[in-house]
């Protein structure tokens, strides 16, 4: 399981929490979901999509749990607030 994070803008960490979408292969049951109390889960076909407002250290903590639980990470995306941004239907307002 190797993944690349989206490039940060000019290497500047965003101190404000932002809405992140994390797509994982398979349906997460209650046990595994309990590892992500800050994230809202939604089933999306054969995937589970976790959405939540995270700052950088919370984001890395989530990724560490994804790794520790051996989950198959498919996608991770920061959702912008712009309405016109190309959306996948997972976009939500914070």
């Amino acid at each position, binding site marked *: *399981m190797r993944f690349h994070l989206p490039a940060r803008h000019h290497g500047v960490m965003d101190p404000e929490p932002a809405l992140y979408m994390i797509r994982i292969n398979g349906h997460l*049951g209650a046990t*595994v979901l309990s590892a992500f109390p800050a994230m809202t889960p939604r089933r999306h076909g054969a995937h589970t999509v976790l959405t939540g407002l995270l700052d950088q250290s919370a984001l890395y903590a989530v990724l560490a749990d994804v790794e520790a*639980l*051996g989950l198959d990470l498919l996608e991770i995306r920061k959702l912008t607030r712009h309405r016109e941004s190309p959306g996948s239907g997972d976009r939500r307002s914070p």
Partner: protein
Amino acid sequence: MTVAPAAPRLIDRGDLLAALDRAAARKVTIISAPAGSGKTSLLRAWAHQPGQPHQLAAVSVQRDQHDAQQFWLALLDAVRHASATAGRAEPQAATPDFNAPAMVDRVLSELADARGGITLVIDDLHELNSPEALSQLTRLLTNLPPNVHAILATRRDLRLRLHQLRLAGELAEIRAADLRFSERETRELLDASGIALSAAGAALLHQRTEGWAAGLRLAAISLAGHPDPERFVAEFSGSDRTVAEYLIAEMLDGQPAGVQDLLLRTSLLDRVNGELADVLTGRPGSEPILLELADANAFVESLDPKRTWFRYHHLFGDLLRLELRRALPAEVPALHRRAAGWFIQHGQVVDAIRHTQAAGDWPDAARLLADHSFSLTLDGQAQTMQALVQAFPPGADHSELALVRAMGDLAQGRLDEAAAHLAVAETYAETTSPGRRRRLQVAIASLKLSLARRRGHLAGVIEQARFLASPVTGPSDEDIALGSDLRAVALMNLGTVEAWSLGLPDAERHLREGAVLAREIGRPYLEVGCLAQLGFAYIFHGAAMPKIQAFATTQRRCREAIALAERYGWGTEPVIAPALMTLAGTMVWLGEFDEGERWLRRTERALQTDTGPDVRLLLHQAAGILHAGRGRRQEALEEFGAAEHLASQLEGSQALASQMTGWLLATQARLGRPGEARACLAALDDERAGSGEIRNARAVICLAEGDPAGALGVLHGVLAGTAPVLGYVTVVEAHLLAGLAYRELGDQRAAYQAAERALALAESDRVVLPFAMTGAQELLEALPRHETAHAALLADILDVLHGASPAAKEQSSLPPAEELSPGELRVLRYLPTNLSRPEIAGELSISVNTVNTHVRSIYAKLQVRDRSSAVQRARELRLLAAGRTR
């Protein structure tokens, strides 16, 4: 970890083993794949292959390991066992002042000495949460001796800078795709587990798990007892749930209720034994269940050969822990509390504190941490302790922690922060119960002493800390044990400060008492520390009284302290530095300059990690007198100047202040700069200016100015015994200066008498240095042999002054070394430098292997075991020029 035998149901993955065999032919192999990919199983199967030619040195990194020292000690221990050198010395013991570079050198030297090939196996490397340890590991991996390979297993790629190895084709990687089970291997696994499944069913299972090792093993456990394996696979395949979660739920469902309960409740432990599991389940009989689980599958493994401690596979444990929090949320804090109670009863304080924190009992955790902070530091767990401090929620103010923070500050040389934290701790101590207050006050006073010593601010500190000398008592055994640790530290710190401020009889008494107590309570670090400071203290004590062979006694004491330190692998640690330095100093005083230089170099190595100005000051002084003894006055002046500069950073005066200033001024004068020396002299206060050492310096200035009568006038107080002196050596020096002055005045008789008095005083210790430093050679040469009662000493001194040190004569009796080849000599020239072997290879444009071959052969021919002793031996044999001491 001792590599436990592979569980019976692991199948022989021949292709993968062959791949690892091929990879292991390179210097370094990295197995990088996610949780549950079968890394550990592969390592085990490989390690237990019949005919495995390598000795294995295997370690498994503890969960979330922040403590570099704990990691390196485990690695060194494994290497020693593998290279069968473990019997040679006591196991390397942890120390409060851990020197990571020296530790890597030690591991490398153990590896280089090993006979036959060694493979280092480091599992769970992703758990090593110490950037420092990772960078030191990089150094280890890029400098492995030819017969050594390393295999690292990790869940994710690590920031090890191994590009050099990669470019050289010496780095092999095994990744998740390589570890995946093939369909054939899936069928073999099912067969080996006695599971009858159709070919289609096996294919379906393989497809659903994508060959993921943990998934297949979990499935095999459930399938083994399943009435309808085909249906199980069909249902599993039809489910969208993640593989691990689905299969762990199935597996748990298949277990009896008692087993399920045990697994859930003990999942919050990093390791478990039967007794601890009984405590958490509230029922007896856990041990047989754990043994059975370990036998049955690869998710519970025993950690020791006796099979008393177990751990769960990390992924499995994490999922169980989540399930526990979900199923029994109310019980979790209570379970942590019970675990903490068991650990504290069994003296495992770090685990106890972790579980107390996990239970959310922050005040209790803070109290435990503060109470055990000295003992933990002595156990070499200082980094772990600071990590525990970090785990407290930010903002929550636990005043107890101020003490622990102060210890971290002191260790890192943040002296102002340490003082601030100590002040907080002091205020807090007032508010606690009388029993704890006393302990906290002892701890605080002890740290204040150590802070005062680092700052050189000794005035008044001892009076405040006097109460430390009386025992700390408490109602329980634990109190007494904690109290003893505290008291031994307190005695060491008190005696050290006393030694530095010349409170010598007290220093000796307290250090000796500290050493005895340390031995009684099994704290070798403190025993070594007390004995090392005792050697330092004694040189002054003894030097105040001639005719008792103070130098010989001091040397013997220092050597005893050093021998004890070496037994624990601390021969070049800061704790022994005072003894190393004192030994070096006495060598120089006795005119054994080469030997003195060797000990001085070792002192420098020991002080690599010590940032305090106090000991470094002595180092410069010793280097200064070494140069002065050899007649290198310019170099001597630089060292004395550096020492004086450090002294100015210390807040108060210290033990040797007048002597050092005296040396500095005298050296300036001897270099023809009496004006500068006079200017410095004018700046001294009266007390300092009246000391024997400064009077001697004033005499040297007079002599340089062509005023021998003035010199005699200044010396009068020293010779008559009215001026205070640090030791009789100051008087020896005064007699010699008087002799030089009489000589200038043309009074040969008085000059001879002065020289004769100097010799008489120097006789019992055979002190040589004052004769060399004062430039008394001509005076001594002119001394008629029949007029001296000290002809033998005189001859020795003149030998030294002519450049042949007594030590050099002894060395000529060493067995001759086999002659080195021109290639070896070329490599030898680089051994005193800081260049690594690859860098030497670069300098000489030859391969690293050639350098390695030469170095091995140099060691063999010089009959030494490491680089520094090779340099030393080569110097003795005049193969290398005696190097400059910094």
